[in-house]
């Protein structure tokens, strides 16, 4: 297969461009979107590449339509993605719930900018963490990944598709304006070096009868895509294992929702990844994610030079959340600092995880700039 960009070598590209290329290498063949800063370049790259690889790229009338179209595409058998920023992400929330309820593998990229409302279109923020996790209504779960470099934007995009397919769930790639527009060297592997996961299809007619059951005991039912003669009915209403609406049966509702949540909760070890720097003997832990972790790495170095035993926990997956790991960390350190570009969103999760075992302090910054390493250092040394 021919690719419209170089593979098997490094390239100097923006985060948005990296996401588009990774999506194509991950097998994405349907993209629907609506322009918004700072995510538009993802769309523009997809518009350029998709027709060449026999995929679809289409500009919809809004973000609601964009996510609707990719869910439809997924049920027709395609790997599908959309990308947006805060305001568009808000519009997508109802259909994110629909994708969770119907167990549809899709990837949604949210390139965060300053909010609320139209806020700061060109400046970075981390204000959508709570929205990504809890934006849609009802009890639910999904996967949220958070890159901090252009290389990670590339790698995590491939991972997002693989996790979506493996667990039949929407995956949100939560990046920000800084990563979106920054140029960095990215290694783009040869397609045959990339591990690709494809959704489980029904092995036979019998399996296809239970598109929302747990026939393999792993919580993830095979997905009978449309047009194969299985005659599957998919609804956002509470449904039984066969997909039949059962809207007033408490037991059916509980069984369905618990399975949807458990299929991710029980596989946390597979889904959650993080990077730890200098944490073994640390007395001070910095827990952060995304772009801020880059300043935090530097801050840890400076702190160590000054004799402070500091370490960093950089979260690559921010949902599902490993509360236990944070508690273990809290038991080992004196204090945890959470620098983030909002008024405290990751902070709430970390504090809950720490469970009172260590003091947790927020280092917040809003307005569009990433924390400088010294801003973090100064807060730690007081």
């Amino acid at each position: 297969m021919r690719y419209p960009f170089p593979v098997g070598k490094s390239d100097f590209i923006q985060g948005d461009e990296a996401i588009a290329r990774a999506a194509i290498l991950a097998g994405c063949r349907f993209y629907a979107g609506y322009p918004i800063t700072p995510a538009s370049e993802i769309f523009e790259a997809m518009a350029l590449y998709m027709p060449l690889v026999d995929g679809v790229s289409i500009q919809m009338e809004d973000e609601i339509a964009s996510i609707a179209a990719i869910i439809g595409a997924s049920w027709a058998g395609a790997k599908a993605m959309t990308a947006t920023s805060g305001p568009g992400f808000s519009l997508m929330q109802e259909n994110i719930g629909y994708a969770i309820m119907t167990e549809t593998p899709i990837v949604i990229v949210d390139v965060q900018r300053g909010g609320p409302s139209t806020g700061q279109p060109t400046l970075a923020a981390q204000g959508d963490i709570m929205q990504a996790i809890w934006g849609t209504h009802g009890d639910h779960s999904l996967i949220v990944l958070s890159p901090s470099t252009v290389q990670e934007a590339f790698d995590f995009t491939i991972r997002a598709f693989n996790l979506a397919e493996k667990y039949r769930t929407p995956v949100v790639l939560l990046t920000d304006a800084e990563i979106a527009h920054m140029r960095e060297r990215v290694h783009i592997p040869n397609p045959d070096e990339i591990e690709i996961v494809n959704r489980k299809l029904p092995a036979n007619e019998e399996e296809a009868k239970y598109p929302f059951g747990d026939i393999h005991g792993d919580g993830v039912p095979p997905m009978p895509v449309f047009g194969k003669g299985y005659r599957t009915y998919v609804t956002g209403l509470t449904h039984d294992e066969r997909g039949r609406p059962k809207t007033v049966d408490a037991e059916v509702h509980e069984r369905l929702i618990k399975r949807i949540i458990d299929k991710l909760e029980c596989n946390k070890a597979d889904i959650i990844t993080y990077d730890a720097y200098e944490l073994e003997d640390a007395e001070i832990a910095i827990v952060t994610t995304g772009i801020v972790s880059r300043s935090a790495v530097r801050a840890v170095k400076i702190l160590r030079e000054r004799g402070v035993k500091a370490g960093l926990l950089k979260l690559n997956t921010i949902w599902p959340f490993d509360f236990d790991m944070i508690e273990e960390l809290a038991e080992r350190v004196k204090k945890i600092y959470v620098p983030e570009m909002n008024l405290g969103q990751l902070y709430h999760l970390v504090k809950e995880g720490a469970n009172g075992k260590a003091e947790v302090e927020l280092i917040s910054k809003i307005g569009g700039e990433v924390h400088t390493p010294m801003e973090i250092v100064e807060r730690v040394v007081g």
Partner: protein
Amino acid sequence: MYLKPAYEIREKYLRKDMLPTIFCPGCGIGSALQYTLRAIDDLGLNQDEIVWVSGIGCSSRVPGFVNFDGLHTTHGRALAFATGIKLTNPDLKIIAFMGDGDAAAIGGNHFIHAIRRNLDVTVILINNFTYGMTGGQVAPTALKGLKGTTAPYGQFENPFDIADLAVSAGANYVARWSVFNYLQGINSIKKALQKEGFSLVEFLSPCPISFGRRNRMKTSPELLRWYQKITVPLAKAKKMPPEELEGKIVIGEFADRDRPGLVREYEAYKKRAKKMMGWEE
């Protein structure tokens, strides 16, 4: 046209384990469904190559009762979901079953844009002048003066003429009937299903429970008599002065043209892209 007995259609196409339907006695949705199934049957279309999509509302429950692949989506968004299905697998024929509120209020934007793109889909639109499922609020199709729970003193806004809107937006095929015009209805659906691009068959459909009751037409026959009063066949309407057409609804076939559909346009676009990039001659 030879009409098969209804039970044969029922046996062949309905999901027995989903019956009975949720529809009230006297509701017109069942009739529109029957016409659609008859049209499919008459054309001999392959059941495994048709996907039904819908939004939310009484009419949108239809895909649950028929034994086809079906996607029952969010309120108003059926055509946006359909865009993804169709462009991913152009071999699938898509039937969208929608309500008037679903298509013209919350889904109004998707509706006109799907038509503008000439998305290859057949829309069967149930126009009952009301929001049936939520209990009789006014719909954007409600004629002035009609009552709904959210306009208890009679609708004061102007209604949409959905068929007219579809013609203007560029649909390839547009027809409107009441559910009592069964032969015209079936024939129109047959034509619609054979069309490339966007086709729409709108049905004025009795909702005695949520709508009729509030407008002094408690039964289906009363609604039928009212439809007879307010509907005017297209040929006759053409000769009537505008004043006389005030408050009337024209029925008939409004558009029948053959502009290329979205699937064909996108195929050509892909070819153009490859040519422009020098990938293909």
